[in-house]
């Protein structure tokens, strides 16, 4: 019993001694992904590799490093793919934005070409068989046809 009490006391002292808690570790770990288990965030990943990473975060927090410093360390060691959000590089947005604009442009052009020629009706619109002004070629063709009648 005395041993248990002393152990509990020791644990409490250890926690108050500045050892980062699991919550503090997981606050950083949730934004990181180990390349070995790419689809599982570090804070919930059960593998040995991820457990080691969490312990490393705890050690670095205990050394007084900030969240940004710790994340930067992981990027340097294991590459930018460990981050849940990729670094904000303009080039990474260029291709999707350009592809979207290109697609929009092609759709716009396509729709315009599919639309039937629009007729601008005259104000009266009474006579449906009203003569239509035509270009010179059609006018000459019609004249030729009249002559043959």
């Amino acid at each position, binding site marked *: 019993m005395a041993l248990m009490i002393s152990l509990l006391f020791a644990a409490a002292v250890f926690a108050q001694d500045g050892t980062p808690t699991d919550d503090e570790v997981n606050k950083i770990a949730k934004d990181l992904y180990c390349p070995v288990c790419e689809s599982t965030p570090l804070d919930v990943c059960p*593998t040995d*590799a991820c457990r*080691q990473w969490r*312990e490393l975060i705890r050690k670095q927090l205990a050394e007084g490093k900030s969240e940004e410093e710790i994340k930067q360390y992981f990027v340097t060691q*294991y590459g930018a793919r460990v981050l849940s959000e990729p670094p904000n590089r303009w080039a990474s947005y260029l291709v999707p934005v*350009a592809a979207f604009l290109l697609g929009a442009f092609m759709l716009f052009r396509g729709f315009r070409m599919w639309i039937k020629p629009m*007729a*601008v*009706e*005259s104000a009266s619109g009474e006579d449906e068989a009203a003569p239509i002004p035509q270009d010179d070629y059609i006018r000459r063709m019609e004249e030729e046809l009249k002559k043959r009648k």
Partner: protein
Amino acid sequence: MTESTNITPVRKGVPLWVQVIVWVFLAGLLVIVAMGLNRAQQGTIQPGHAVDDFTLPLFKGYEYQGASEIKLSDLRGKVVVINFWASWCKPCEQEAAELQRAWEQYEPTGEVVFLGVDYVDTEPDARVYLKKFGITFPNGPDLATRISQYFRIKGVPETYFIDRNGVLQYVQVGPFTSLQQIQNIIDLMLAE
């Protein structure tokens, strides 16, 4: 009298230069996607492939001839054995002792260099592992996983044997089962 109706033609051809840019861009996108898919389906780099140069930083205490980093091109003329491992990798433990014994056998000849590339690991745990198995050959971290990405490793352990001309000759996926297995490959390469 009736008034005339005007027809306004709306079809207008897309300028040729726009069409060219659109199709070139789309073709480029398709090529990028195809390359990505192709790369994803590829296995490790294959024997016969000339290995590109890389630099491996070395853990303190695991330097090569006093240097804190090692460049593959500096080892031209020697057989190079590159072993990918990690402290969290249980199969790696099966071959660790054999690799060390092989290193002890070939190190005095000066014709073979072993390089341990520590994959996605933490240095404190890596050091514990190296000490546990008494490993003495040059070892270092795979910073930003650049080397493992180049070799397209699928896991650890994997071992690559590079000949004196810098050409990959053998790939061992998974742990070695015996010292003899390692010796057979190296002796064959030394005899060439």
